[in-house]
């Protein structure tokens, strides 16, 4: 029992210190800021600011300030701050306005993710219709400003603890599954080595020259096997065998590289790094990917089917990687530029039944809303 407890505390504080710290600070901030009879707004606001600052320092690791990076952090920062205001604001009209801010910055994120049609739809429907209706009801129902109910919360401590435990575990799982920073660093090194002119330069890029670049290859194998090490119990047997195979491949390539280095054969070495790049991409692909088996027939009307591999594979997969319309620079599949046209095609081919159902739902909701809000007694009066 005690041993379990100490293990749990070490897991929280040592292994996942940053996540725990940010979640705990955020918990304290939201708890202090939630409306209560005796509210300490200043301490809460200071804590919230500290949380945001700390999270910014821990999360923002962009070394290049491209427009995309700046816009992403600006939009998500505004969204998170406005979300916090929505939850802690005691005046409901202001809460509705900060919800509008959340919606607008979400639309910015949509635009960054190549979804202009969704951006326009969300602004029109949420900011234009839903929020206005909310404000309308608010003004109808609450003409005397802030009421007593708005100055109290139901169980603020328990609610904040629940929310931040969920947040902490979500962030932990995200970091565990998608945290590929080490692999990305190794991938960048590999690409630099591939572009180097001579074998000696390649060796310099890899570092640890005297030991035969042992450190690079050990780190590479470790990064590839990360999935297996971290979730040793839970990993699917398929995933385990993939990462083991990739690690073996990296070991083979290491011996080929040592051979090429001895013979000073630049072309052969370059081929080694090209293969190593493929191994790294494939390993990154196998992290936290749930995708349907590749032999299932799937519709290709909404873009490349979901069971198509994301990255070029090692050669054991017969599918051509060119079918993915991939972007050379970013390594991501491209989305069609005519977003609206393709979205329409996807809606009216793959999702036709769902479109019909959504239309029916809208009709039913309209009729229902009118039937509910109708004053029955007044017709006779």
């Amino acid at each position, binding site marked *: 029992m005690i041993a379990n407890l100490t293990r749990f505390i070490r897991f929280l504080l040592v292994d996942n210190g940053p996540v725990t710290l940010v979640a705990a600070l955020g918990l304290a901030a939201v708890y202090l800021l939630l409306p209560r009879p005796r509210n300490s707004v200043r301490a809460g606001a200071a804590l919230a600011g500290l949380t945001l600052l700390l999270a910014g320092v821990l999360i923002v690791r962009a070394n290049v300030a491209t427009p995309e990076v700046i816009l992403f952090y600006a939009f998500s920062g505004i969204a998170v701050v406005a979300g916090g205001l929505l939850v802690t604001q005691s005046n409901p009209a202001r809460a509705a306005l900060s919800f509008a801010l959340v919606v607008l910055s979400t639309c910015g994120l949509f635009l960054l993710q190549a979804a202009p049609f969704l951006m326009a739809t969300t602004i029109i429907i949420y900011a234009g219709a839903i929020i206005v209706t909310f404000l309308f009801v608010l003004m109808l129902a609450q003409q005397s400003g802030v009421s007593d*109910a708005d100055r109290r919360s139901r169980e603020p401590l328990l609610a904040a603890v629940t929310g931040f435990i969920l947040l902490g575990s979500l962030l932990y799982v995200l970091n565990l599954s998608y945290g590929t920073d080490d692999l990305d660093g190794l991938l960048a090194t590999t690409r630099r080595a591939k572009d180097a002119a001579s074998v000696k330069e390649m060796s310099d890029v890899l570092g640890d020259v005297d030991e035969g670049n042992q450190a690079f290859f050990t780190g590479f194998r470790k990064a590839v096997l990360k999935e297996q090490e971290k979730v040793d119990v839970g990993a699917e047997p398929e995933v385990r065998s993939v990462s083991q195979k990739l690690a073996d491949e990296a070991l083979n390539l290491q011996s080929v590289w040592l051979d090429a280095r001895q013979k000073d054969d630049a072309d052969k070495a370059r081929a080694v790094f090209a293969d190593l790049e493929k191994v790294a991409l494939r390993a990154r692909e196998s992290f936290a990917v749930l995708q349907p088996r590749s032999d299932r027939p799937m519709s290709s009307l909404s873009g490349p089917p979901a069971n198509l591999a994301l990255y070029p594979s090692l050669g054991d997969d017969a599918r051509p990687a060119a079918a993915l319309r991939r972007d050379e620079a970013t390594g991501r599949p491209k989305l069609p530029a005519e977003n609206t046209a393709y979205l329409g095609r996807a809606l009216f081919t793959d999702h036709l039944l769902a479109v019909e159902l959504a239309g029916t739902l809208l009709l039913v909701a309209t009729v229902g809303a009118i039937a509910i809000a109708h004053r029955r007694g007044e017709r006779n009066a």
Partner: protein
Amino acid sequence: MNPIPLHHYLAVGAVLFCLGMIGFLARRNLIVMFLSAEMMLQAVAINLVAFARYRGNLVGQTFTLFIITVAACEAAVALALILLLYRSKGSLDVSLWQDLREAGQEPTLDEEPLPPPPAEAPLPQLTPSGVEPRRREETSHV
């Protein structure tokens, strides 16, 4: 140069979702509760759009479109219900409806009194300066 990776978008979605959940659990105004629920829907929409970009596939965006549809329906019905509840109790406070709670559950009572609302600022008054001139008795000039 790498673009913003997928899991950063997922993290933003997670933060918004959890804030919305806290708002839904803790706030007592019906409208703020529904705003929090809408914010949770927005968080999920961010996730779906990020996955659509990641896979180069429009299924995620289509799904988001349906989320928006359902959110619009939900808002219409919810606001009608809120109006109905408001008409019968005269307040948007959700804890007025706690007699619908499960049997054997203790009711929540507000024990701590609210601080008195801040006093209204007094209207500005001009300070009298000098001596008031004597008014003449009103006389009729008929």
